[in-house]
Structures are given as structure tokens and as C-alpha cells.
């Protein structure tokens, strides 16, 4: 069985006498569901679970005198598994809060079940902006990044360099569509033009055919609206076919783990929009160092987001004095987030965690001084500019 049940109680729970019913004795149970074994496993996966464990341990292992437990599952990038697992967790295992990882299809499915069951759903790995827009819910928090922020980072970054014509390589599912759509909006709004798109199946191994079509379009920018293994193989093939000589590649969603896997020689010059980089502050370096010790690799922004959002949730439970979903949500919305992940972040009514985003460029091999030293900062986008602006939102929660 893929499901593992990890008890993380540090302090033994003494029987509390008087006035506390048995129901209150139930542990605070965190359910974490993500891609543990597929093409996105390095972005989140076991490392994401480790980050949540670190947060729980740092918090002390208990909250309101209850122990904190973590259950995790692999959704295998299938929406039906994600939905049924969430249902099982809430109905049978008494899971209090659900953390979701990579894959937009599974995230939308989980969010729907969570809303129906009135459980808080915090997503760190999925991209689709629908989570806080068309399909927003009072129980969903989209914490680390979304496709709008990526488009405002990478697409805008390219337009600012004067590169106006685009060809997209799009992963053929919810995330790819959302990313392409959001990037197209940014491109059109700043006077650019999309010359064509190739939609490829998730987890494709050969990209040469699409790349040739992209090259024939004579566009200036090759926009990669895909992620993980697909991005890696796209960049690799683009180098092989010499496309990098005629087109500039904009990876709309590039994780540091991808850069590491592609290798600095092929990845140099890529633009990447990220919410967090391990080398951005003393606090982030400290967290990254601890994570590195355990996982033998640097954390991605998603894994850092897992740590930060777990802390945010637990702090809110403590402050609210209950794990009741509505009260904890209200508490989280009124508290600013200041930690190693972000400064002055806040959770908006639509569920977006509004925080600064960063546009990075991958260094050249000669600029790399130490392992995982991959990024140089191009610009910082304030949260208000990076995420959906309220007038554009279709989320009823935001504009009422």
C-alpha cells in the first residue's frame, strides 16, 4: 500500500480531565496527496512530505494539546484517485486539513471534494489559476504560485526584452491550457502575437516533431506551457535541434530541480518565474541546508511552500483555539505571513496567497560558483501585480 501513516507525536498525550469530550481528543490530521512516483515526483513528492514533517516537528508535534499526525498518498496524476482518496480521508480517517501537491487536474478534483466536506485544502504544487478563479471555494488556498503569476513573470519578462512573437508547446491537460491561456492574455495585452501551438500528451518522450513545427512558425519565443519531465525533454531536444540559436526559450514553469536535471550547459539563459529560491535570504538558506541534509537535494519552491503553509495552518489553529475549518480559515485570512518563504504575504478572499514572485535567469556555466547555484535575479514582482487583479477575477468570493 502506498499510504503511509506516520505518527509524529513528540509529547505523549496525557489524558486531559474535565470538560473535554472525546471528540476533542482526536488528533489534528494532515493529509498530503501529490505525485509521489511520476514525472513531477522530484518537484514535490517525498521531498514535499519531508518539508511538512519538518514543519510539524518544528512546531513541536502538538497543537492545542492534540498530537499532529500526517497521512500521505500518491495520486499517480489521476484525478479520480485524488478525489476518492480525499473522500476516504475525510469520511473514514478524520483528516482535518488536506495539502495538495503537483498536477492541476488532481488539484481541482481534490478542491471540489474538500469544499463539499468543508475541509481546508491548501495547494502548493498545482498551477491552474482556476483554483482561485472560476472554481474558487471558501476552503481552498492556493499558496505557492499559479499560472497567472507565471505568465506575468516569464511572458512579461520576454515581452520586456522586445521578443513579441510566440509559439507554444502545451501539455494537453488542465494545467497546460491554463498556462497557455494566461500567458496568451499577457502577450496580447502587451502587443505581442501567438503564431501557433502544439499540444502534446502528458509525459511525452519525443518533442522533436513539435519543435520543428515551432521552428517553421518563425516565432521569436518558444513558450513551454508544460512542466517537470516534459520541460526537461523539451529543452534537451531544443538544444539538439539547434532551436536555441533562432528562438529564445521561455519555460513558463521551470523548477530548480528541472534546471539541475537538464544540466547548466543546456539550461543556461532560460527564464524562470519562481516564488522562492533557496539562496534568497539567510532564513531560506538555513531551511535549504536542513532540507539538503535529509533529501540530498535543494528544495523547490513547492517544497518550501509546503513547509511555510503547514506552519501557517498550525499557527492559525493555535491562535483560533480550534481546528474548525471556518474559524481557522478566518484566522489565516487575517494574519500576515512572514517567514523564510515570503514577507508580508496574505491570503485573499478568493484563496490566493498574495506574495512577491521573482523572475530569474539561469546562469552560464562560468557564473556557477557552487552546486545548485543556478539563478540570478532579473526582477521582483509584487504580489498585487503577479496574481489575478480583482477586477479580472470571476471568483464570486472576491468581488462581493
Amino acid at each position: 500500500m502506498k499510504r503511509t501513516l506516520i505518527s509524529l507525536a513528540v509529547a505523549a498525550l496525557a489524558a486531559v480531565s474535565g470538560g473535554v469530550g472525546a471528540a476533542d481528543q482526536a488528533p489534528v490530521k494532515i493529509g498530503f496527496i501529490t505525485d509521489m512516483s511520476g514525472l513531477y515526483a522530484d518537484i514535490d513528492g517525498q521531498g514535499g512530505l519531508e518539508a511538512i514533517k519538518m514543519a510539524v516537528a518544528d512546531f513541536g508535534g502538538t497543537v492545542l494539546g492534540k498530537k499532529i499526525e500526517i497521512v500521505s498518498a500518491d495520486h499517480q496524476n489521476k484525478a479520480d484517485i485524488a478525489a476518492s482518496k480525499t473522500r476516504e480521508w475525510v469520511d473514514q480517517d478524520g483528516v482535518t486539513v488536506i495539502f495538495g501537491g503537483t498536477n492541476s487536474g488532481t488539484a481541482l478534483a481534490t478542491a471540489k471534494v474538500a469544499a463539499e466536506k468543508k475541509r481546508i485544502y491548501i495547494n502548493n504544487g498545482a498551477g491552474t489559476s482556476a483554483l482561485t478563479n472560476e472554481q474558487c471555494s471558501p476552503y481552498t488556498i492556493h499558496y505557492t504560485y499559479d499560472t497567472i503569476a507565471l505568465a506575468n513573470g516569464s511572458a512579461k519578462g520576454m515581452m520586456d526584452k522586445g521578443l513579441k512573437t510566440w509559439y507554444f508547446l502545451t501539455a494537453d491537460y488542465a494545467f497546460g491550457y491554463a498556462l497557455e491561456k494566461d500567458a496568451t492574455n499577457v502577450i496580447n495585452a502587451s502587443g505581442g502575437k501567438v503564431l501557433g501551438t502544439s499540444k502534446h500528451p502528458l509525459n511525452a518522450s519525443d518533442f522533436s516533431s513539435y519543435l520543428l513545427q515551432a521552428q517553421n512558425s518563425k516565432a521569436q519565443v518558444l513558450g513551454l506551457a508544460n512542466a517537470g519531465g516534459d520541460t526537461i525533454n523539451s529543452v534537451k531536444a531544443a538544444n539538439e535541434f539547434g532551436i536555441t540559436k533562432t528562438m529564445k526559450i521561455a519555460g513558463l514553469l521551470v523548477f530548480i530541480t528541472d534546471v539541475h536535471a537538464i544540466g547548466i550547459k543546456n539550461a543556461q539563459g532560460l527564464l524562470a518565474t519562481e516564488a522562492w529560491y533557496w539562496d534568497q535570504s539567510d532564513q531560506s538558506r538555513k531551511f535549504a541546508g536542513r532540507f539538503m541534509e535529509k533529501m540530498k537535494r535543494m528544495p523547490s519552491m513547492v517544497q518550501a511552500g509546503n513547509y511555510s503553509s503547514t506552519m501557517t495552518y498550525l499557527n492559525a489553529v493555535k491562535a483560533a483555539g480550534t481546528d474548525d475549518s471556518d474559524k481557522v480559515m478566518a484566522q489565516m485570512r487575517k494574519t500576515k505571513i512572514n517567514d523564510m518563504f515570503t514577507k508580508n504575504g496574505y491570503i485573499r478572499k478568493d484563496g490566493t496567497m498574495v506574495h512577491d514572485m521573482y523572475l530569474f535567469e539561469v546562469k552560464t556555466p562560468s557564473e556557477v560558483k557552487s552546486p545548485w547555484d543556478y539563478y540570478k535575479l532579473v526582477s521582483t514582482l509584487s504580489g498585487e501585480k503577479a496574481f489575478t487583479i480583482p477586477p479580472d477575477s470571476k471568483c464570486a468570493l472576491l468581488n462581493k
Partner: protein
Amino acid sequence: MEIFGLSSSALLSQLLLGLVNGSFYAILSLGLAVIFGLLNVINFSHGAMFMLGAIVTWMAGQYFGINYWVMLLLSPIVVGLVGIVIERLLLRHLYQLDHLYGLLLTFGLTLFIEGVLRSIYGASGLAYSAPELLSGSTDLGFMVLPNYRAWVVFSSLTVCFATWYVIEKTSIGAYLRAGTENPKLVQAFGVNFPLMTTLTYGFGVALAAFSGVLAAPIIQVSPLMGSNLIIVVFAVVVIGGMGSIMGSIITGLGLGLIEGLTKVFYPQASSTVVFAIMVIVLLFRPAGLFGREK
């Protein structure tokens, strides 16, 4: 000149790329066909062996500084030996049973091998560069073809046809074919049949490893690279006819071309078109295009 609204040069280049993928299908399905022909085992671990071929190549380069050309020979031998061990220790005991048992065993092995390597190397994989000699590209007029891709087509076709020649035209091949028909009788003539099956499995697996080495510089070397490919290769074998040597080569190349064309006209269907063809072929020729009904 335009064909279906596409310039002929664009069409030609897509066909050529299809041929590159087809070469992978051909050599992988050839290995499967050889194994099925003699052992009657549906070797589901073929994808894992393909991946092992690539990852062994990467490891040799990373840890021992052994270059691509040496590994092109060495990696199939190493993985072939792994196959021989698997056959001797495990598969051997299943020959008397239904096909399904062999399939389940090899599928289990796949999960095991992939799982172990994923926990060591992660899912995003490792980068491997093409050798210096083949790293450039050639302008063919209608497209710029990386030299390495041309090498893939050339070397896999050479290996495919060499295999076909050995099996169909030499005395070793004659024993093999006879063994497929009637193992007991072949043994009665003094041929060491158990040794023959062991070596055949080793050879089939080595073919998979060889294509793994060929793939290493093209796709990211990752524990999952085989499972992405193997299902398509199985469809290729079914379309060509289980156990048919020439059938698997021709079908592999042909389906690569068809898939290439699909990527131009309707990319979303490129992962399904092979299966659609499989359904149609099975409806009209249940034994496959080149297979014989037993």
C-alpha cells in the same frame, strides 16, 4: 508544393523524425518478438531493460569515465547478463504455466527495478550528452537533422537486419526456429535447448539495452523512460504479429511514420493512434499483420 496544407519539406522532415522513433520501436519490438517466439514469455520488463541500458551507460560515464562507444557494446552485455540471471533464477520455472504468469513476473520486476532506481536517482532524471563525433547537425535542405538522430536510424536498422539475417538465414537461426516449433524434437537431436532459451532471453534483453544506449543522449535518462515507451512497443508487437521477426521490424518503422504524421495533423492523438490501429488490425487479422495463426 503543398500536401494537405503542409509544405512538402515540412512533411518530409516529420516523416524523417517518425523514422527515428520508428527505429526505436523496431528494435524494441524485435527483442520482444524474439523472446516471445522461443520462450513464449511476454516480457513486460522490456521497458525496464531499455532503461537499464541507458542508466548503465550514464553510470559508466559518470563513475568510471567510460565513453559512449564502449558502452554501446558493453551496456547490452551487462544488461544481457542481468537478463540471463533473471531467466535462470525466475522465468525458467514458469514455462509450463500460462503466459500470464510470465507477464506478471516480468511486470513485477519492472516495478521493482524502476522503484529502486527512482529512490536513488529521482524522477527528473540525468543528463547524458551525445559523443563529440556525432554532436553536430546536417542541413538536408528541407530540415536540419542532428547527426546523432541519423546515427540512431542507421545503427538500429543495421542491428535489426543483422538479427533477422542470423535467425532466418544461418544454422543457429535454424535451431532457434525449430525450437520454436517443437522444442522436444530439437532436444532429441542433441541441441542444448535450455541453454538456447537462456541465451535467447539474454539476447532479446540486450537488444532493449542497445536501444537504451541509443536513447540516452536524446531523452533524459530517467527510471521512468522505459515505462513511457513500452506500452506503445507492445501495441507494435501485437500489430506486427507476436513472434514475427520481419513483422516487428517493418511494423515498428511503419508505426513510427504514422505517429510522426499524427503529430503534425492532430498532435493530441499521437499517443492514441497506435492503439486505434491495433484495434482495427485485431478486428480483421487477430494474429497480427505478419503473424500466423497457430
